[in-house]
């Protein structure tokens, strides 16, 4: 009974996800596509919980549904005047449909042909106790595959510099993003004051819990970024400008600590990014805290966009 209901739940969820995705792709109107994409992110987070991947569900909820959604909404708010321009290709793009269909069919075929590998089960089970943290996903991210994670934190920085390169020459010294305003004492401003303290708590909790429970630097950092964004959007705080020393420091803190810890590992423990056993947990927590700061600041800046002067359409 329970198993059948579970299956029905999965089927219903996937049907909704597919319907929403179809609406994202095929519906006319950019705003509709954006709203459906946000809905898609919500449903995907639920799907990840069903797949016993709470760590991923957290990332999807915070990043997929949250930050990406705000990013797209803000951009759409800017582009309304250009929306009269063409939205989808005219007529039915058969070649695109063929390509998409073939890709989906190929992946579907591969699913049933794919053997279940034995690796890396045994190695993983043997190594996890030595990784320093109880959350296996955190162990992979910050110990076994730390080089990936280090590069990834730098990818965020590269994207941010890229976004900044799109500023207009005259706006370079302005605060980041468009100037936001709200009625003082209004609902939005109030919102911007109430939500951040709660969010701060949640974000810090996620980082702290991440060592042994689902959570971690990326999830926590995203929530913290969201908190900052709410405060900025509600006009409660004003974003800094490029080159403000404290903020530039915050941007590079995480990758820098990570790199230096890696080098320290090379000097002290005999290998780049090697965390000496027994010292692994404090090292991971230190790196995570530094990473969280950088991730939060970088993500918030990414969503805010390049600096822009007042009144520039």
């Amino acid at each position: 009974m329970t198993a059948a209901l579970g299956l029905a739940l999965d089927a219903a969820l996937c049907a909704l996800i597919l319907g929403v995705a179809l609406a994202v792709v095929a519906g006319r109107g950019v705003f509709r596509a954006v709203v459906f994409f946000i809905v898609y992110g919500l449903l995907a987070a639920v799907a990840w919980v069903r797949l016993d991947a709470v760590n991923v569900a957290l990332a999807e909820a915070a990043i997929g549904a949250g930050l990406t959604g705000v990013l797209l909404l803000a951009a759409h708010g800017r582009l309304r005047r250009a929306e009269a321009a063409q939205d989808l290709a005219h007529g039915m793009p058969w070649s695109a449909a063929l390509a998409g269909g073939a890709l989906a069919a190929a992946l579907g075929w591969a699913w049933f042909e794919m053997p279940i590998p034995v690796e890396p089960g045994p190695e993983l089970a043997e190594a996890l106790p030595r990784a320093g943290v109880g959350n296996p996903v955190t162990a992979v991210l910050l110990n076994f595959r730390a080089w990936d994670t280090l590069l990834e934190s730098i990818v965020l920085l590269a994207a941010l510099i890229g976004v900044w390169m799109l500023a207009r020459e005259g706006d370079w010294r302005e605060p980041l993003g468009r100037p936001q305003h709200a009625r003082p004492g209004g609902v939005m401003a109030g919102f911007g004051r109430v939500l951040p303290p709660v969010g701060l708590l949640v974000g810090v909790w996620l980082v702290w819990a991440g060592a042994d429970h689902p959570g971690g630097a990326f999830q926590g950092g995203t929530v913290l970024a969201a908190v900052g964004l709410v405060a900025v959007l509600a006009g409660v705080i004003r974003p800094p400008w490029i080159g403000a020393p404290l903020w530039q420091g915050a941007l590079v803190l995480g990758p820098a600590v990570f790199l230096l810890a890696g080098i320290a590992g090379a000097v002290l423990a005999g290998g780049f990014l090697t965390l000496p056993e027994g010292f692994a947990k404090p090292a991971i927590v230190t790196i995570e805290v530094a990473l969280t700061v950088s991730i939060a600041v970088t993500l918030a800046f990414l969503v805010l966009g390049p600096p822009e002067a007042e009144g520039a359409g």
Partner: protein
Amino acid sequence: MADLATLLFTALGLVFFAAGTVGLIRFPDTFSRLHALTKADNLGLGFIALGVAFQAESWAQVARIALIWVLALLAAGAVAQLVARAALMRRGGA
């Protein structure tokens, strides 16, 4: 006993969600849909949260459930007001 409470409250929650959706589909204009909606879905969430709270294994879980509901309430309330305002402005401007 706890199971009975869970059964009752989650069922109530489901009813409210269904009612909210019906309202969302059937009500004729944006404003009445808005009003129907904000009440129904938050009540629905509230009842479901309450129902599940009876199954919780620790107070920390109950506290988290409460936090979720407060957050949803806060967001829904503020947003309903702002959206109504925005819709009003748009209608006035058009």
